[in-house]
């Protein structure tokens, strides 16, 4: 049972435009959400996180939005750069446990 879902396997965006990656979850106990970025042949790298007490967290070009009622979060990258081309994984965890549940990833391609 996939508790974290990324329904878009791939996304292509022009350089300089906004990239929006989406993620849905089903477990209402999740209260901490993360985005990881993965380049080929490397492990996932932590990008940004958000606690359920917030609805937005911003770090430079990256902003994560959380809609708890819809059980949905999104990652916005503005402006997108060719170096952002990678696979992005959404992950979630609950205070009651310390396990991270991952989505299946979205492959982002930023076209120069």
């Amino acid at each position, binding site marked *: 049972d996939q508790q974290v879902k990324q329904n878009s396997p791939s996304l292509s965006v022009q350089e300089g435009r906004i990239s929006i990656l989406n993620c849905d979850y089903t477990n209402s106990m999740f209260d901490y959400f993360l985005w990881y970025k993965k380049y080929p042949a*490397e*492990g996932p*790298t932590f990008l940004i996180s958000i*606690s359920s007490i917030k609805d937005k967290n911003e770090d430079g070009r990256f902003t994560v939005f959380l809609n708890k009622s819809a059980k949905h979060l999104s990652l916005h990258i503005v402006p997108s750069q060719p170096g952002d081309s990678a696979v992005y994984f959404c*992950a979630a965890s609950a205070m009651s446990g310390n396990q991270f549940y991952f989505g299946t*990833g979205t492959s982002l391609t930023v076209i120069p």
Partner: protein
Amino acid sequence: EAGVVQSPRYKIIEKKQPVAFWCNPISGHNTLYWYLQNLGQGPELLIRYENEEAVDDSQLPKDRFSAERLKGVDSTLKIQPAELGDSAVYLCASSSFSGTGHTEAFFGQGTRLTVV
């Protein structure tokens, strides 16, 4: 600060042979994870350690997989015997407890296993 170190990076073995992976977490991180990542999928937890104790191994196929974390630092994951379906990337990650109880996990580069 050194990151999570895994070895080997790549391993090719014949089916029914044993294989072992090693992980050195970030210094001071008490939580260590082994994840399995199949092609086109997200990482899936195999086992989680809090210091020396395996606190979540419900997804570990215990008939062929074993893991240990001696002295609460380095960890090894073993498969014996390996099957064709075990071909995947094995990721090690570590994290530390924060005041909020939430912290991100830091991943190693992974070991890509190919069973032929």
